């Protein structure tokens, strides 16, 4: 009886080891951060004609890894530009256009353009969301005399429900959090 128990136990043990090692499965590797923004591209169309220029912050492999590329924004003096911003996720193929997501939920987003005083750039005429509060996917940049400086571009996301976005919210409002925070150097020449 005892002997029998013993061999029975060993049998169970061996069977389970076999069972366990044979039922390994291979799960596909899916690495996909659907929310990542790798690229911000600014398209400058001069009012009254002229060459369209684009500048970008580009980090195609997402945070970490290779160093991101950041253009210097070079504009002509004393001009007005119609500026459109485009956001891309290049970690997927083909790259997805995140601007559409922002435009689809304008009450939860807001771009801020904060040029340094020395940059001689003024940003105005931001487009609005449905409630008449600035959204900022498009804007108008007015340049002054030749200068070099910087501009900070921020995209804020309101996670609250409701978002409670208000005209007076600052770029560092406690109600919203940062999706984009890029400092470009600027040169007017």
């Amino acid at each position, binding site marked *: 009886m005892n002997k029998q128990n*013993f061999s029975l*136990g060993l049998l169970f043990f061996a069977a389970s080891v076999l069972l366990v090692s044979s039922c390994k499965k291979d799960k596909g590797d899916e690495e996909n951060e659907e929310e990542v923004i790798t690229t911000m591209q600014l398209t400058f169309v001069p009012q009254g004609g002229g060459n369209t220029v684009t500048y970008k912050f580009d980090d195609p*492999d*997402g945070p970490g890894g290779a160093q991101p590329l950041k253009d210097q924004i070079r504009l002509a003096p004393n001009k007005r530009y119609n500026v459109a911003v485009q956001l891309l996720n290049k970690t997927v193929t083909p790259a997805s256009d995140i601007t559409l997501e922002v435009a689809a939920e304008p009450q939860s987003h807001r771009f801020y353009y904060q040029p340094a005083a020395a940059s001689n750039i003024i940003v105005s005429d931001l487009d609005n969301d449905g409630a008449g509060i600035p959204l900022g996917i498009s804007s108008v940049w007015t340049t002054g005399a030749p200068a070099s400086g910087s501009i900070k571009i921020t995209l804020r996301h309101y*996670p609250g429900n409701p978002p409670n976005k208000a005209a007076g919210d600052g770029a560092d409002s406690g109600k919203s959090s940062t999706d984009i925070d890029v400092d470009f150097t600027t040169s007017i020449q």
Partner: protein
Amino acid sequence: MKRSLYLSLLTLGWSVLYGQDCNLRLTGHVHRAGSHENLVAATIVQTSTGKTTASNANGDFKLDDLCPGAVTIIISHTGYDSVSRTIQLTASAHIDVDLRPGVTSLQAVSVTGSRSRTNTGFIKELSAGELDEIKGGSLGEILSRMNGVSLLQTGATISKPVIHGLHSSRILTLNNGVRHEGQQWGSEHAPEIDPYIAKRITVIKGVDELRYGSDAIGGVILVEPAPLLTLPGYKAEADALFFSNNNQFVSALLLEQQSKGLPSLTYRVQGSIKKAANVKTPDYRLNNTGLSEQNFSFTAGWRKEHFNSEIYYSRFQTELGIFSGSHIGSLADLTKAIAAARPDRTFTGENTYRIARPSQRVRHHLAKWNTQFDVASNRFTVLITGQYNSRQEYDVVRNTSIETPQIDLSLYTFTQELTWEHPRRSRWSGTVGASAMQQDNSYSGRYLLPNYRAYALGGFAIEKWVNDKWDLQAGMRADFKSMKTNRLLAGSSTLVNHQFAFPTWAASFNAGYKLSNTWKINTNVSATTRPPQVNELLTNGVHHGTGTYEIGNINLKPERSFHWSLNSVYTSPNKNWQAEVTLYRNDINDFIYQQPKPDEPVLTIRGAFPKIEYVSADALLRGMDLAVSTSLSRAIMLSSKYAMLRATNKRLDDWLIGMPADRIINELSVTVPETATLKDNKLSIDMQTVWKQSRVPSSRFGQQDYKAPPAGYHLINAVLSTTLQLAKTPVTFSLSGRNLLNHRYREYLNAFRYFTDERGRNIILKIKLELKHTSN
């Protein structure tokens, strides 16, 4: 206190003077119920003095030098249910004791647990009564009631235990005898265990931990259910709880039965449900801090002579919200949120059970099959287990149409274990075991840690020797773990593969000595080795909760710990006061921690994040736990528990970050006289004092923390409980209050101390109902 000290000295003197009167002898015979087979090596303990002896080859034992009066002894034996007998001694006497084969023996864990309870160097236990008092909380919250154990939190909904400054993968958790394998490496990952399955929760550090692994640098937590029924009949238990702070409801049910027709079979079903709304601090309610949990377990045992088998299945499922004001996009946001005195009003004030993003959904399934059989006084145990852990983390997303989790991890673990307990020979007992583990982790979504497959093999041997005065134990263990990882980088076809192999070993020695019947000392030395976890090796990405860019280090070596502890318990002979002190010193070589690299910020589209890298250095943790209790009268008791820890980084000659501050709990408890209908009437009030953590790393090697530790605090808590006999059914009512003064405070070990205050006043009502029936 002074008076009782004087009293106890007096009593001590008295018993020395008149000790000659205590010369009675109690002899006895232990045999198996039914078959009347003599039982060798049963342990007989006299409860009042701790005097211990064992039955000889004929099942006979004797206890000498007993005093006249009531003598209570507990007779226990591996594989049998323990029996307690009280004998009124006027002259020397003889008793016969029947032991029934017990299911206790089905679990090697609880057997060793109870056997080692008086032996092991560092052991802390919460009994069923203490457990009842604090039920309804998470496993971490329950454990933090033990002296020397504190709580590491991420907001109001996620908590895990810290034993003597160590947590996460430095602690092993045994869930009903099975080494718990979940996604436990981070501070925001709580143990996936329902505390309602436990009848006893124990923390051990010493020889017995070698059964479970060579990597228990901080100790082992044993979560054990009650043994299954041993007599035909049934038992049912129902609990209902309400917590006022967050409108939390908990209900738990338990049903067990041993059928009369098939006495070999016994089973238990158990489940609990928990639902909680948003948590309230004294000044504001925190949005999205709700919780919803459903747990279930089933156990069945089959018992024959020299053969036991048990199957067990448990399911843990939780969905929990994470305070929405804590989700931070960039370092600038974090700095701003930390500087604010309170969270923005957008994130406070909602009183709802709704859980939105950010949130976590976690499921844990566990199945085990445990079989035990005897072959000529040798006991063999085969344990086969399988676990599946699924963790889904839902981040705040820009696009509200996204419904998928951003992190999705699946972890499968299988273990096989065979142990052999050799026959007890006079004072010797011992166990030898071998185990194997296979593990597979896969992920999808955001990268946090790679896919991996790990295999481990281990073996251990433990031997114990006991006599009246001495209790000596020694053990060794070796493990070998290999791991293959792979990651397919997002947006490319590049596969990143790594392979690791970690041989680890552990050894432990324990010596206990009884200086007298009332004074025991115990010392333990343990060497343990913990291999680096996969996140420490290979994590790579922005950690939004801390506003840092975390990078693993594939060159990390296993941590080697050398732990020494000394424990002493003294009980005054009249039992009016008791003191226990534990001193410990843990030298950890190659201790793995996170080091900020302030000169290497990582530039991302969200701005620059400070880089934090996993590195290792030698660390030293020293501390003391002290507990004193005094009976002021028959009804009034005062007790104090104090815990302190000093933890340093030896290489940098600096303090370690994130260590618990010194703390003390002073408690006054009053037993109110029983009436015909009201029994176990208790009232207790305690004050918990936590000092400010002043021992934090300096900023010599880069900024280590965003905010200085919060101020110390005092909390007042109280419990009032009674048991009403309602037609033979005991119904226990308890009304308790935590943070009664609604004190505003923040705790250093809570990651959300940057953003929010801790929970305010919480009034808790509990009702427990027990039904029992024995059909014999």
